[in-house]
């Protein structure tokens, strides 16, 4: 019983982090058709910037927001200055994001060295909660809450605002969106900024769990890919459901069948690609 309670809570916490990471990835992928392979590196960069801000006395949540903005600006610059020039050349764009991922990883290594840096949880959330004879890390519960709040905000943004309507239009049919007078290029920059800023902020929010360390990017990127392919490209609901599915599959899979840890993680993705290539909530592309 204890085992299932704890693993369930663990799965929710991992799902929360994955949602923060992959929602931006999914939106960018859906709108611009670019799997931004630098997303994991930007997540890591966010975590590192967060550690520097926090060590200078900045409040944890403020550091998450500032770090997100900084990473978002970098992402917007990347989109404007490089990806835009490669418009239409999707392979080129994918390779560029991969190259940028390596560059960011090496810059992080130079600036923050190779040693892992802990991110302290906000005051008051550091001690585990003891209830019914179980100990559960308080901060992980908070992460689930943050993810849910962000999901609601993003949902309102996408479904209830003009900007959201334009993004949805762009995801569904780029040519038509352009045809009805949506300034798609500006839309691209805005989405890229938000998507990447989410990743940067997620790096800080996940920091007290993962810490900032070289290789964090490569650990996270495959998880984001699985979430997005499973949930459906460009679908917020898909990213949300996909994150928690992956959270549960990953936790229970590794706990119950440890020898098959990787198989279990990637099996849902393979099945989705074979039987429902557009993902659980994605729309088939013409």
């Amino acid at each position, binding site marked *: 019983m204890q*085992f299932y309670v704890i693993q369930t809570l663990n799965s929710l916490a991992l799902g929360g982090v994955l949602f923060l990471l992959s929602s931006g990835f999914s939106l960018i992928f859906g709108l611009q058709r670019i799997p931004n392979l630098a997303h994991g590196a930007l997540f890591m960069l966010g975590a590192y910037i967060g550690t520097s801000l926090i060590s200078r006395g900045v409040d944890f949540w403020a550091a998450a927001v500032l770090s997100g903005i900084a990473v978002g600006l970098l992402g917007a610059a990347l989109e404007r200055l490089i990806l835009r020039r490669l418009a239409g050349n999707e392979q080129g764009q994918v390779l560029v994001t991969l190259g940028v991922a390596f560059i960011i990883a090496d810059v992080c290594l130079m600036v923050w060295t190779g040693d*892992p840096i*802990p991110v302290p949880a906000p005051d008051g959330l550091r001690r585990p909660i003891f209830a019914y004879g179980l100990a559960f890390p308080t901060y992980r519960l908070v992460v689930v809450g943050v993810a849910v709040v962000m999901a609601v905000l993003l949902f309102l943004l996408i479904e209830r605002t003009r900007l959201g309507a334009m993004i949805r239009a762009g995801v569904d049919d780029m040519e038509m969106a352009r045809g009805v007078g949506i300034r798609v290029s500006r839309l691209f920059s805005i989405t890229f900024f938000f998507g990447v800023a989410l990743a940067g902020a997620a790096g800080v929010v996940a920091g007290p769990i993962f810490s900032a360390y070289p290789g964090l990017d490569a650990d996270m990127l495959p998880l984001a890919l699985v979430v997005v392919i499973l949930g459906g490209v460009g679908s917020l609901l898909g990213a949300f459901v996909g994150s928690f599915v992956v959270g549960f599959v990953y*936790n229970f899979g590794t706990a119950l069948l440890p020898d098959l840890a990787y198989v279990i993680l990637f099996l849902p993705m393979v099945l989705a690609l074979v039987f429902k290539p557009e993902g659980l909530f994605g729309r088939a592309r013409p």
Partner: protein
Amino acid sequence: MTAINRRTVLQGLAVATGTLAAPAVQAQPTPVRIGFLTVKTGPLASGGLQMEQGLLLYLKERNNRLAGRAVELITADTGGVPAQARTKTQELVERNRVHCIIGPLAAFEALAIDDYIRGVGLPTLAVAAADDMTQRNPNPWFVRATSTSSQCAHPMADYALNELRMRRMAVIADDIAYGHEMLGGFQRVFEDGGGRVVQKLWPPLAVPDYGTYISQFRSNLDGIYMGFAGSNGFRFTRQFNEYGMGGRVPLTGGMTAVDESLLQNMGNEALGIVSANWYSAELDNPINRSFVELMRRDYRVDPGFYAAATYTNGAVLEAAMRSVDGRVEDKEPFMAALRTNAVPETCRGPVRFDQYGNVVGNVYIRRVERKGPRLVNTVIKTYPDVSQFWTYDPAAYLRNPVYSRDNPASRFLER
């Protein structure tokens, strides 16, 4: 991809100008060329950078001269990728004509260059710990002054049994050969002495979150042994505490679980962890005291496993070069000297080698304590002259297969 990076060129220039500036009283022999395989990019870079710091410091202290010959150090970054380790080794030999190499860092890199080293006969002072490189498949051109993966795990198990009085333990390690060999060594000695390993957990090497594993630990354990590489011990310990386990079950660890490089960023959660290693920055011998002081001065860090590894390799290399009067070009006598010389004083204590080219040296049991502002690995017991075969008969030991996930067989696992 170039074999010579900027730093190498600068070092080369420094050496060259140094040679030019010296009064030409006697004919200068050509410099000895040392290839240095390290990792400066990717997830293993933390250890690779420390390897570089330790080696550069050793050479700097000696004015870039060993046994009367100037040293030209050619650094190659393998990125921790086996194929690249092989390419770089080949470049070092065929383009730079190095006389020996120091490195590589990781076991899979060492395995990737194993047959090449044999083929060209390249003296190699390794850091990588793969057991079989000096056991069932010994390479005659290989000398290891650090330890095998399991060499420090044997005494750790002995200490857990006889001093910490642990009988019922869980073990957790990275699911790679290094982890398998550490846990295998630990389990064998622990169970031969009457202990029971009741749980074995194998998280993948790159797992961001240990929550799943931590919540699986059985109740009433006497202790947990961690066989982690890189920064995994750091994250595991933090998350262990986050789950309220800290202080309930004592942690013990392998060589790199609470390395000095990790301790500098760790907090009170690390206090009390007992681990076994062939080195500690706290070792009280004159060479180590000065080494630690210089590392703190030049790099503002305490040396850990990797810095001490290349610093020790420097001492082994220098001793061998002395005994062949600097004639590293005669490969066979040079290699023989590397493997037969006893080096009585290094930062890790006395070092000598067995017939397989692996070190016989002290293993230290350390406990994490707070000393002023920093966390340190205080030495609480020394096991002198530990062989890679522990107290087992080498021939009998080698008849068993190498330690793996399922060897030794687990008799006490609780499902």
